[in-house]
């Protein structure tokens, strides 16, 4: 049991903070409160945003005042949260050139061979910690063996669906953007497809494992994804 801190970001957003590090145990608390609020939403709560170590609760202070909201959160914290129903995903990733353009550099910085980097990256079950930056852009962790510093200078924009690593974390981009992270590969899957019935694929708290595919398989999967198909696999619960 972690005693949360209650921080205000203005009069319409309450931050319930469970810690100050990236830690699955802290994140579990965030997810548990998020589920509890979703199961019994107090009037005036508009939206919740789970992050690495806190839950932001957007609320209407003319409907629910801060003290009442804090009281409700404390009450929810005192009882077990609804059970977690995280989905396990397998996501294809092509590490070959040109997609994994920084693989040699990542290997050098991590003190591993390129094959070992791919094995660690695809062999680790990663947790979806949060979204940010742009729609569908998610942060995955952790990869302690890839705890390498970011670039000293920002790289020119790369295509969407690029898989990046730095600081023991992994992100999947959904737009073309410049980056300070290292390019390890590209997935044919689109984590954000506004025209698809499931515009977003993975939820915060889901787990995800990358599966290495070669260039030919990548091209075939990318064509199917472009046609609106989901090419990531949903695995049965562990």
């Amino acid at each position, binding site marked *: 049991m972690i005693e949360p801190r209650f*921080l*205000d*970001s*203005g*009069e*319409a*957003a309450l*931050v319930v*903070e469970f810690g*100050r*590090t*990236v830690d699955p145990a802290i994140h579990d608390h965030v997810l548990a409160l998020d589920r509890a609020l979703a199961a019994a939403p107090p009037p005036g709560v*508009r*939206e*919740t*945003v*789970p*992050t*690495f*170590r*806190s*839950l*932001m609760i*957007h609320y209407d*202070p*003319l409907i629910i*005042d*801060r003290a009442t909201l804090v009281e409700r959160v404390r009450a929810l914290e005192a009882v077990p949260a609804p059970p977690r129903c995280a989905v396990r995903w397998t996501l294809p990733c092509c590490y070959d050139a040109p997609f994994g353009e920084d693989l040699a550099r990542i290997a050098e910085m991590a003190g591993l061979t390129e094959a070992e980097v791919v094995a660690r990256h695809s062999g680790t079950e990663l947790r979806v910690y*949060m*979204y*940010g*930056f*742009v*729609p*569908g*852009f*998610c*942060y995955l962790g952790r990869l302690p063996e890839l705890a390498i510093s970011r670039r000293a200078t920002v790289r020119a924009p790369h295509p969407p669906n690029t898989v990046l690593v730095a600081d023991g974390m992994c992100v999947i981009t959904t*737009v073309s953007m410049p980056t300070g992270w290292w390019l390890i590969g590209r997935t044919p899957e689109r984590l*954000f497809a*506004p025209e698809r019935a499931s*515009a*977003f694929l993975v*939820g*915060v708290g889901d787990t995800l494992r990358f599966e290495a595919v070669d260039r030919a398989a990548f091209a075939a999967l990318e064509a199917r994804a472009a046609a609106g198909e989901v090419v990531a696999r949903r695995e049965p619960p562990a």
Partner: protein
Amino acid sequence: MSAALEILAAGPGVTLQDAGRFGLMRFGVTAAGPMDPLAFATANRAAGAPAGAAAIEISLGGLELTAAGASVPLALAGGAFDIALDGMRLPPAARLTLEPGARLRVRAGAAGARCYLALGARLALPPELGALATPARSGLGGLGGGRALAAGDRLPLEALGPPGGAPAGLVAPWLDRPGDVIRVIEGPQADYFADDQILAFCAGPWSVSPRSDRMAYILDGPRLRHARGFNIISDGIAMGAIQVPGDGQPIVLMADRQVTGGYTKIATVIGADLGRLAQLRPGARFRFATVPLKDAVAARRAEQAALAAPLAIEPVIRTALSPELLLGVNLIDGVTSGD
């Protein structure tokens, strides 16, 4: 011919905005919506539109448009913009009916940075992820794909309201908001700053950098120092949160902000002052004042009460005289007092 508004000219950053896109912040989708929620709500109310209906947010770049196929009731509210209907000057907060072929021109005026054009009609456009709001960089909303409005765009309309008669000014004194002091609530990371830096933050003086946009207002002024580092593990970002990155230059995160981020946030602008800040032009000077949370809630309540009261209108006095009118008047006839 079906009813529509036709854009004749649009400066950069003129966008469609409804109340915003909600429920998807957990997937990285910013809410967007109006930069000045109070002016947006006032315009919608005056137009007879439902609260939160899509309106046009006009930037300093200005907008010129006409109606096609039908008379379109509409209302304008926001900063002190120059508004002209077929050359006739109207007050900056006004209600009118745009007749087919008539030209409505909205340009930056004496003060303010945003003006809302609300419709007594519904925009017949498909929402994207549940809304028409157009955030920068997300590729969502508006006429599709999230782009700003441009000359040649056609906004199809349906469910038109009754024509509202002659143009009239809106009596909306709550929009006369001086922008010299912006109220904030400290936190969520005020504890990353020593007391003297909180004081320096309040005193400023600050001015809005010309690099500012709907995502962020970058503030020029003193550089702030952190007491214990500037990186935090990313957490949520509310509209109005004031982030202080490593270089000490504060950034107010506005309607199109990213929903999470990893810099310390010294304070958050209160809801009632978001519009005040949004109406500041580049170079405008101001300072911050910290207030307790209850004051911020009281200010919200006062705004809501102002909007709930009956909206008064006043007739428009012709201020731009047409050449035809001038030719018909003997300007030197009679005796004038000379003042």
